[in-house]
């Protein structure tokens, strides 16, 4: 069964491949960028991986049959790209990357690409930034399998079904991983509650 969004995309691809792909980028680039950033923790690295994700998608566009939503398809490519990148880094013996962006509570607020949160109060902003830094640090400390479900579910709001599809695993696995991940995060973030 072809997803309705996927059908539209396939139709556009048939008419003008590049134009269709540009529209797909417009629709998904921020979401892809966001989940990659939250998984790797460094903006520049996330940018490279997001670019690589879209390049893979462009090359694999002809193989997209519409069995899943376009963004789910893109998420899967993105997650696989990140995991593959991490595995290579691990194989090369590189230390786990700890984002310099997050060593200070100010950093999230300093990122020029952050969306505005509507708060003009500096103290509130600083407090929020500090909290965000701690939360992100806790997320970073999760193992890869747990981190990815947290990012996809809690940050992107995907359903368990979608997460399971992206990760190519049973729904029950997503449920149990998410529960364990949240339990670990709860312990790490107890002081913030």
């Amino acid at each position, binding site marked *: 069964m072809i997803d309705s969004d996927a059908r539209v995309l396939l139709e556009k691809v048939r008419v003008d491949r590049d134009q269709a792909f540009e529209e797909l980028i417009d629709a998904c680039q921020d979401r892809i960028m966001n989940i990659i950033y939250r998984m790797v923790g460094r903006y520049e690295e996330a940018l490279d991986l997001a670019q*690589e994700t879209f390049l893979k998608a462009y090359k694999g566009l002809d193989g997209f049959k519409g069995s899943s939503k376009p963004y789910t398809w893109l998420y899967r490519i993105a997650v696989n790209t990140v995991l593959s990148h991490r595995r290579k880094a691990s194989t090369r013996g590189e230390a786990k990357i700890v984002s310099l962006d997050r060593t200070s509570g100010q950093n999230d607020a300093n990122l020029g690409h952050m969306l505005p949160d509507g708060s003009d109060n500096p103290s509130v902003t600083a407090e929020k930034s500090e909290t965000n830094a701690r939360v992100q640090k806790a997320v970073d400390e999760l193992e890869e399998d747990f981190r990815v479900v947290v990012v996809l579910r809690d940050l992107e709001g995907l359903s368990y079904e979608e997460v399971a599809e992206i990760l190519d695993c049973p729904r029950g696995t997503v449920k149990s991983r998410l529960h364990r991940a949240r339990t670990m995060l709860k312990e790490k973030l107890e002081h913030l509650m």
Partner: protein
Amino acid sequence: MIRDAMKCNEIKQHLSAYLDAELDAALTEDVEKHVTGCEECQAELEALRKTRNLVAALPRVSAPGDFKRAVMNLARSGAEPSSTEIVKSKAKTQLLSMTTVLSLAAAIIAGLIVFLIFTPGENLVQEAAKREPRSQDMKKTPVPDAAMDKNRKNNTELAPLAGIASSGKDETTGKKLSTEKPGKGSGDFGYTWSDEEAETDPGNGRTQKNMDDVLESLDKERSAAPEPSNPAAEASPDEQDKSSNRKFENEPKELARKAPAPEKVKKTYKSERRKEADSPGEKSKKLEQNELEGTRTKEYVVVARNRTEAEAKIKILKRLYSTDEKQDADGKDNRSDFSELEEDETLLIFDLDPAELEDFQKKIYLLNTAAESFSEVREKEKKKQAPSKREETPQKERRPAATPEEDAGRPEATKRLPQDGNDSASGRETEKDKKESLRDRGKGTAGSTDSSKRIRVQVKVVIRNE
């Protein structure tokens, strides 16, 4: 009680899914019933909710504005997805290389500065400022021979500026380099090729005369060299060869480092004259060393700012080294006509033994560097002292002020005013004497050298500003 505990543990496994509304209706009802009556599970559920909200509250990032364009450009160019990583790796490698080069350059410059400052008795800039007559004044009045000799002597003291000086020690390698006594010899290159001289017809004797001065200086230096003290000459042929190569192995590299970044040579000797660039000075670069038919061949480049300068420099080398026994092994005479040169044509070919090669390298080095160094020193001196000097000598005949066009690219160097006639020839060795002297020296320093150790030297010319 135990049953309640089991129930709590079971329910807790579903709390996350309950929060997300991902439980089926029956399980949702079970959880709601349990949580309503269990404070512990209520607290747990609340903690999980806060945890989820904290994560969900993390700010979102967005892609930069040109992200789509960049991706589409790469996609249309057929770039492979992994190429982004490759590009990054290359960039890192290039950055590393550039960092290394910059570090090396900084170290060399620092070393050169230390060398110039701490060379005993030779604070070069200051001494040059004290004793060098300014080129402007030299233009005004004829310079007597005595003054020229003095000038030449002073230039000898400036020789360390050229890097291999008569102090005999390479500051970079710390190795003993020169076989000559300090203060004498190889540094005596008091001549600077000015544009004015270069533009003069070589036939009128001016360029030839100044070239003769350089020859004289070379001969003087050569005759002053204590040949037996040459450790390379006393060594066995093999050691001698190695020693010679070792000593000067770094020299061309050092030279290349010290020289400014080489400009792209637009044309070679045959090219038409173009407007001189405003940056005076010469560069030298050893292009390559290779093995050719069992004979080691080394290629050297004489860099000149213009054709006349190149011609004069080549003539100097030719007169010094192109003796009968140093003729081209192919039977072809070394070049004497410079008007029809081909691109990258080798102008001089001769064979030298290692000791001679050592001397030759010094000559090339000094020819290509000394004038520039002097030029820089005197330009500073000129800027510093020119106004007061004019006031002191108002009665002297002055040359008309040069137009800006004439001044462009003109090196303010130790330019001896060309003299009418051929007075500089007095006291100078004849051509034959020079050749014999050179031959004798070769025998003295490397007479026992096996001819198979001789090195083929090829000299080319690069006109820098044409």
